[in-house]
């Protein structure tokens, strides 16, 4: 390889890195102009997550039935549906907890999520908040965020790990975003339910994921906390892609602001998709929610 070619490659790589932030807004350019690295999702086509005919069955019961779903880069999408519609199973499939019987799941246009394990999926940039808040109860709030910080996840690195000043700043910043600055030294197990939810969201932010999956993020929160959560999620839109599964229609209305798409799941596939008011007016949706 000639030095010119190497120089050219390095330039392309630098440019790619400089434009990474832009990619959130679509950042489309001709496919041959971009350098693709193995562990980086390529969002060139504007699609962050693509579920293609995904089917999952448990003992004959189809939890997901040929589900198709596409989430755009930087999009905030709300997903609703009655109990047993397959919302949590869908998240399990995306994060590698459940393997589908058929179908494909890709992140960006180059990463096949079905080939990766849970921790590898987290490493390529997908963060997940569970329905029941799961934080590390014995550790302090600060330590919880520290573990989630994006650094080398290896055993050897963990033995010599020291927090750099800027990393400490990032943790402090996240602490104030999730309104837990005063509780930094508190044991996470002693937090209220709503605070645990916030801490878990904070841990996701520390991971700096490209795609956030949130399973009922406001369950058990007070009205005020719910409102603050909605505000927080809206500030993340654009920088990250978000998928929010929620039962609380008021919250769905708050985060979609009458202009973002809502997807309705029913019996493992998409029943309707569109603005909340249109979806709510859809007869089939009304039927599913209220029964015949």
């Amino acid at each position, binding site marked *: 390889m000639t030095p010119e070619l190497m120089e050219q490659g390095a330039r392309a790589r630098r440019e790619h890195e400089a434009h990474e932030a832009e990619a959130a807004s679509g950042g489309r350019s001709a496919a041959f102009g971009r350098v693709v690295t193995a562990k980086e999702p390529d969002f060139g086509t504007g699609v962050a997550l693509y579920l293609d005919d995904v089917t999952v069955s448990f003992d004959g019961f189809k939890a997901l039935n040929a589900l198709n779903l596409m989430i755009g880069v930087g999009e905030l999408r709300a997903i609703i549906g009655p109990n047993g519609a397959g919302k949590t199973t869908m998240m399990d499939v995306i994060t590698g907890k459940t393997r589908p019987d058929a179908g494909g799941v890709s992140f960006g246009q180059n990463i096949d999520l079905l080939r990766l394990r849970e921790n590898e999926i987290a490493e390529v940039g997908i963060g997940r908040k569970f329905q029941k808040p*799961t934080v590390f109860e014995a550790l302090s709030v600060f330590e919880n965020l520290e573990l989630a910080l994006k650094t080398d996840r290896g055993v050897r690195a963990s033995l010599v790990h020291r927090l750099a000043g800027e990393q400490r700043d990032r943790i402090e910043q996240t602490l104030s975003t999730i309104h837990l600055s005063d509780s930094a030294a508190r044991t996470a197990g002693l937090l209220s339910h709503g605070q645990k939810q916030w801490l878990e969201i904070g841990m996701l932010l520390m991971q700096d994921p490209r795609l956030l999956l949130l399973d009922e993020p406001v369950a058990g929160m007070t009205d005020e906390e719910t409102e603050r959560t909605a505000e927080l999620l809206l500030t993340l839109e654009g920088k990250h892609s978000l998928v929010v599964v929620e039962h609380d229609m008021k919250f769905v209305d708050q985060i979609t602001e009458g202009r973002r798409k809502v997807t309705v799941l029913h019996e493992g596939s998409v029943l309707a998709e569109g603005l909340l008011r249109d979806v709510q007016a859809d007869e089939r949706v009304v039927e599913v929610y209220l029964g015949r």
Partner: protein
Amino acid sequence: MMSRHSIAVLGALLLVGVLVPALNLLVPAGSALHLSDYVVGLVAKIMCYAICALAMDLIWGFTGILSLGHGVFFALGGYAMGMYLMRQIGHDGNYGSDLPDFMVFLDWKTLPWHWALSDSFWFQMAMVLVVPGLLAFVFGFFAFRSRIKGVYFSIITQALTYAAMLLFFRNETGFGGNNGFTDFKRILGHPITAPGTRMLLFVVTGAVLVGFYLLARWLVGAKFGRVLMAIRDAESRVMFTGYDPIAYKLAIWVISALMCGVAGALYVPQVGIINPSEMSPAAGIEIAIWCAVGGRGSLVGPIVGAFFVNGAKSWFTQMFPEFWLYFLGALFIAVTLFLPQGLVGLVKRRSRS
């Protein structure tokens, strides 16, 4: 200015390294301050147990994985040391042969292949680490990769130690069958029962215990330790945060097994015998009991627990031998019900109120 912790560590080192040898060797036997050989031997034995309890705490107390098979690692380390000690007997055995007595008894003419390098102290010392470490690595790799957790893991570890015990019971395995190894005469050419040798072994054991305590403290204090605790509390969250729990579990599992192997190697020359009963499931459960009684999740706890339970055991078995097991059972139930943090937790609670 030294912290309270480093003063305590230094104190422990002075105790085992200076005070006990002085009281045992220099103070005449009639004096009130004299420490009898019996007490020194007992403390040495319990220090070996304390190392096991500490190892158990790392895997159970901090990582949430209860192993009931740690006896196998302890015994393997002990057997590796025992093989060397058997060769050190030389011609002084009952049959005056080149071969260890049990081989003569079985009418073997040559050493089996796995005894080939057993007269080398350093080779056998390497085996003290390699054999338990390798077994732990292979077993742990498959168990953790298959995501075997909780009570299932505990049962499998118990099966492992039981299987090893049955294997070592067989004469054909070449480890002395159910009699194991005993009648040791020398270590590195020195008579093994001489006061000086015994005291040196005692001091080495004490130093190793303190060293392992410091190692455990370092591991737990690093981010590594926080990941272990995170695995204990919410393994799925650890995975979805991007950590590979298998690597962490395997690392601490192997470290824990190595510590037990070293404890076994220190135990055998001081107690003078190793046989397959060290691998019995009951032996593995006892290690867990020391750890629970002292206090899981605190590094001092398991050491305190090993001393408390074994001290009680030697007192009880002298006074009311037939009641010991009842007492042990009652103690375990009482600790589980009333002292989830163990004895150390009790002290902490007292000092707070």
